[in-house]
């Protein structure tokens, strides 16, 4: 028994990752490989997001309640970078919008500058209000004009028409910018102000995305985003894929007649093309995840990591030893948020569609948090594991819940209203379930599944 325990302690990561692998293999053999790779891809994206949050929470104790907002900024970047510009809309309202935004920026800059000069507060307020009114006037003019341009298809300015992979970097930068601004304001203050401010900014980002149609089409969604990987249709035409598929299934195909062979093969090729496309995404995501983990580990095993751990151990003493804690926290917060932004961009790229209403705090803030805590806060590998486990549970919890209700239905007579009631509401149990997991892990196993080695005992 003791022996077993020792093995568990020293090979925790390997054991848990293998178990996760077996579960995925099981699903693959029993359901479909496309489904499994889909789950893996979403887990990889979630893992990157969780990694960003883990860097903030695990290394600096920064509580980001606005993961959703930073992820959404990544998503917006995808639209703005990769979509083709809508020339007509730009011709009608582009300049006006640019002018309105410049005016807004100038107003804010003037307010800040005059405030620094110590000008009368009332005068500053007056200037800001007048500037705001003009901005708002031109802004609504411009947005009306833009939104009128073929609203069913465009009705927005479009993007820059650049390669979509560029948007991953831009998404990271956009999230970093927002994080810098929020961090600058709140990080020198009490620790929960950051939490409150991130909650606020993330809600506002979502409101803007939903309401400003000229920007990213609001509730009308943006469809047909570019792809960094080939399309299934093109793949099906490629000879080498056909050859590989034919080779894999050669024994089965040999037994069939010519016409059956062709139809069967095209079925297999279609399936293989889906798998191939998803696998290409997996490759990309895995590469990015590994790169982030490597960079993070290099940093942690260096004087930078030592400084960060010292600050986490004792802020007062670290400050007395000359370390600027606010600046360090700001850096970590910005980096973590940037990683979340990149992951947000990856997610929209993978979906191929931008849907503002998909940004729900439960899915984007809370689920990620549960991943970090379940996996083991402070441990990068833990976050990855947490992401895989929680995404799997998340995806399966819907069907399992419905299945449970159905099973219940077999025991209850027909037409029972309470059953309908439960069926209707069963997805809200996710909130309770996820909340409980988080609370239970925090309470009884604060280290998570893969606890960080350096954590204070």
């Amino acid at each position, binding site marked *: 028994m003791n022996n077993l325990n020792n093995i568990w302690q020293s090979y925790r990561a390997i054991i848990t990752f293998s178990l996760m692998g077996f579960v995925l293999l099981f699903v693959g053999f029993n359901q479909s490989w496309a489904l499994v790779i889909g789950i893996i891809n979403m887990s990889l994206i979630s893992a990157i997001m969780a990694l960003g949050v883990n860097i903030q929470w695990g290394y600096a104790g920064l509580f980001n309640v606005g993961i959703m907002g930073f992820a959404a900024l990544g998503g917006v970047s995808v639209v703005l970078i990769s979509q083709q510009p809508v020339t007509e809309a730009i011709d009608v309202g582009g300049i006006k919008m640019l002018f309105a935004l410049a005016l807004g920026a100038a107003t804010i800059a003037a307010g800040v500058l005059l405030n620094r000069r110590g000008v009368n507060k009332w005068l500053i307020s007056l200037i800001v209000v007048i500037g705001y009114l003009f901005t708002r006037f031109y802004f609504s003019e411009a947005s009306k004009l833009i939104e009128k341009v073929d609203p069913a298809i465009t009705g927005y300015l479009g993007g820059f028409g650049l390669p979509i992979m560029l948007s991953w970097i831009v998404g990271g930068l956009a999230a970093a910018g927002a994080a810098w601004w929020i961090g600058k304001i709140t990080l020198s203050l009490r620790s929960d102000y950051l939490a409150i401010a991130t909650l606020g900014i993330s809600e506002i980002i979502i409101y803007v995305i939903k309401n400003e149609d000229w920007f990213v089409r609001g509730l009308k969604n943006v469809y047909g985003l570019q792809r960094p990987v080939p399309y299934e249709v093109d793949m099906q035409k490629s000879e080498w894929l056909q050859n590989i598929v034919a080779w894999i299934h050669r024994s089965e195909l040999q037994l069939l007649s010519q016409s059956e062979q062709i139809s069967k093969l095209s079925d297999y090729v279609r399936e293989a093309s889906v798998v191939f496309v998803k696998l290409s995404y997996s490759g990309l995501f895995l590469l990015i995840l590994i790169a982030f983990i490597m960079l993070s580990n*290099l940093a942690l095993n*260096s*004087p*930078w990591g030592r400084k960060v*751990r010292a600050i986490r*151990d004792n802020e007062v*003493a670290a*400050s*007395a030893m000359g370390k600027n804690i606010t600046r360090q926290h700001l*850096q970590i917060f910005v980096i973590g948020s940037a990683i979340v932004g990149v992951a947000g961009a990856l997610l929209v790229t993978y979906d191929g569609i931008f849907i503002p209403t998909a940004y729900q705090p439960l899915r984007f803030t809370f689920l990620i948090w549960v991943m970090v805590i379940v996996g083991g806060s402070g441990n990068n590998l833990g976050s990855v594991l947490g992401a895989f486990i929680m995404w799997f549970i998340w995806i399966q919890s819907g069907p399992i819940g419905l299945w449970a209700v159905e099973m219940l239905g077999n025991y209850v007579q027909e037409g029972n209203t309470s059953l309908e009631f439960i069926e209707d509401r069963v997805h809200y149990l996710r909130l309770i379930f996820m909340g409980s997991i988080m609370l239970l892990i925090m309470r009884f196993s604060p280290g998570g599944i893969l606890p960080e080695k350096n954590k204070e005992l």
Partner: protein
Amino acid sequence: MITVKNLSKHFGGIKAVDGVDLHIERGSITGLVGPNGAGKTTMFNLIAGLYQPTEGEIILDGEDVTNLTSHQLFHKGLLRTFQIAHEFPTLSVLENLMMVPANQLGESLMNTWFKRKQIHAQERELQKKAEEVIDFLSISHLKNERAGNLSGGQKKLLELARTMMVDAKVVLLDEVGAGVNRTLLNQIGDAILRLNSERGYTFCMIEHDMDFISRLCNPVVVLAEGQILTSGTPDQIKSSDAVIEAYLGKGIKTEATS
């Protein structure tokens, strides 16, 4: 070295420090004594930038440092230790020391990715220096121990060691001898004297142990109820009626109410 003018700190209605004028001479070891609640640690926290004073100013080496924060003061050569040891528990003793020097190459994120070699070289130097300090304090056997596992006295030594990793001008020692056994205390005392004479550190220390103070400090400043009661050589202080009254008479009263 340090001049404090009319320094006050109020917490709500309590005047923890109340109009203190104090001068710490370059190269001296100034002792700060007084009954519990006299405002000694508050004084330290004010000088070291942990608190902002309600009133008054602090001058370090001719420069006004009243509103600087503690990490800024570190870069001006002012270091401190804490009454309750503030070690970095998850770092080893060696790491506790190696983290101290400022502007290390490897503290910049970019360098940790692109200048691995230079960082390694610098780390080796730092480690050598840390080992020297550990030798100086005769705690070499502890160098790879997690600081959280040290005894109270060892943690105090570690704090002292941290201040030796850089060339400090002034070191504030807050009850460095509290909870430390005799042998270790003598060791700490020797270290302080050597640092003072060999490296020219200026010390200001809060202490309760009168023998320890007599051995190290001159002058000694007595603080009571947030104000300076008197100052002088250890012998003068020991025989001063005002001090005895502060400790035994009024002192007990303050202790009970605070």
